[in-house]
């Protein structure tokens, strides 16, 4: 039985990308099937910033293609990495002397496609450098980076890298700027209820009423432990503590705080969570220099949110706040 406003299940990705690029035709277009690019491509003397990932997480990742952010997003089917072939096509489109920075969220399928496509690109003279994000901390605070997933912490990273790339930074400078952010960002998801895969209606996460799980991945896969539902303040405190411990935050640090709704969380709930999280960060003596309450990377109708905290330096703050972007879903504006 259908539970969503869709047509043929196999056409979901194609149709959603068509709708998206039709609505935001002043900012984005489809260069080829499942390859979203800016409407006006930037000059070739600047580094192109490209990412890849499965559909089903709207507005991520294609919603962040636009001037001042991503140059291109290569989209796979629902929750599935695009194949190396499609990614290789995109890399060919953006071949340039300045190079391509390929930002990859740490999920095995995405990494594999990215590895293959970049190797092949290298053999035909396309300069590609891979930057891998792994902001999830649900696998444990001591878990090596390789085993941590990439969650919504990639979105502020896209803003920083996109602004810096458009400003003319070299590929090595961008990589260093991005790695510096990756080392200082941590994300934790929490969820309740259930959500379903849009193509086959399989329940991809199912928590009994009255229970929640902290440490949820972005395909419903469990990460942390289940527990009885607690208040927004208690949830926020628990999550900030874990994130702050991971980042070893200390008084005087400048931080950003983002509450990302994963599909059916109200802005009301997200705002209440944000309030307490920001208070705790302030109580720790850190200065929250940038905040967002928004849906930036969803998991279908999952009721829950991801909390993203990063310790940022002046470069990060500058590119995050002082440069405009017209990416359709980057709704925060400059200072």
């Amino acid at each position, binding site marked *: 039985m259908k539970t969503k406003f869709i047509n043929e299940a196999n056409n979901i990705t194609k149709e959603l990308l068509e709708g998206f690029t039709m609505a935001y035709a002043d900012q984005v277009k489809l260069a080829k099937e499942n390859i979203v690019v800016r409407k006006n491509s930037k000059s070739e003397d600047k580094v192109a910033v490209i990412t890849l990932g499965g559909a089903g997480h709207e507005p991520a990742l294609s919603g962040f293609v636009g001037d001042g952010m991503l140059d291109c997003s290569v989209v796979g089917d629902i929750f599935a990495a695009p194949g190396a072939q499609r990614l290789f096509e995109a890399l060919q489109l953006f071949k340039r002397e300045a190079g391509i920075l390929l930002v990859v969220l740490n999920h095995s399928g995405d990494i594999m496609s990215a590895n293959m496509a970049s*190797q092949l690109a290298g053999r035909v003279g396309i300069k590609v450098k891979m930057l891998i994000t792994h902001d999830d901390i649900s696998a444990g605070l001591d878990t090596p980076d390789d085993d941590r997933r990439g969650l919504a912490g990639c979105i502020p990273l896209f803003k920083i890298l996109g602004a810096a790339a458009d400003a003319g930074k070299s590929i090595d400078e961008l990589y260093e700027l991005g790695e510096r952010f990756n080392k200082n960002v941590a994300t934790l998801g929490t969820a309740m209820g259930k959500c379903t895969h849009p193509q086959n209606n399989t329940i991809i996460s199912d928590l009994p009423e009255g229970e929640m799980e902290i440490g949820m991945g972005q395909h419903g896969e469990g990460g942390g432990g289940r527990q009885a539902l607690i208040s927004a303040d208690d949830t926020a405190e628990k999550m900030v503590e874990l994130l702050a411990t991971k980042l070893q935050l200390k008084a005087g640090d400048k931080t950003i705080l983002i509450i990302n709704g994963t599909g059916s969380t109200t802005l009301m709930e997200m705002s209440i969570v944000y309030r307490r999280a920001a208070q705790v960060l302030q109580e720790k003596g850190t200065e929250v220099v940038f905040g967002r309450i928004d849906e930036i990377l969803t998991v279908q109708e999952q009721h829950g949110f991801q909390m993203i905290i990063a310790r940022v330096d002046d470069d990060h703050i500058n590119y995050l706040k002082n440069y405009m972007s017209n990416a359709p879903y980057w709704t925060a504006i400059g200072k």
Partner: protein
Amino acid sequence: MEKITIGDFKKMFNQAYTDIKQREDEFSQLDAVIGDGDHGTAIVQAMQSAVEAIDKGAEFKQMLNDAGFNVMLQTSGSTSTLMGGFLLGMSDHSTGEELNIDQIKALFKGGLEGVQKQTKAQPGDKTMMDALQPAVEAIVNSESADIRTIMESAANAALEGAKATVGMKANFGRARNYGEKSIGYADSGASSWACMFQAFSKSL
């Protein structure tokens, strides 16, 4: 036999494709013990893409490069990454239309290096590396002047390596989560790569 031609090489890969296809289900069943049960399908698809390009080739370097691209672009998953790396590595260490014994040693050594760029797996981890590395070492270390003898020793080394995985505990990738439960079954990748080297030898 002192040289192999492009024609011989095409026969080797076609034989490997045929033999692997025949044992497809067996490889998938082995994979189902400690993986997602798709290795048979994956290795058949990878070999099919490789053979498609190899059949069109006229010169070793270009042919193996095209085959590597074909495998990596047409199919996905770790099996094609490894097979693609093998072909691209061989391409980097070959040239011309026929290969003498020293060139064959360089070819397979290059193939192994190409796979090592894709995976950190070592012999003993219960992976395809348990078949590939001994096979390549047998080729490189052989003192024979006959290619048939050399490739036969490679086939034997690969087969022994694959058999030895039965007693190993998976130590790599997702399979390592199975720990002790992985003991008692041969690794699917080691088995299919051993099958490939046996077919190479048989075809000459």
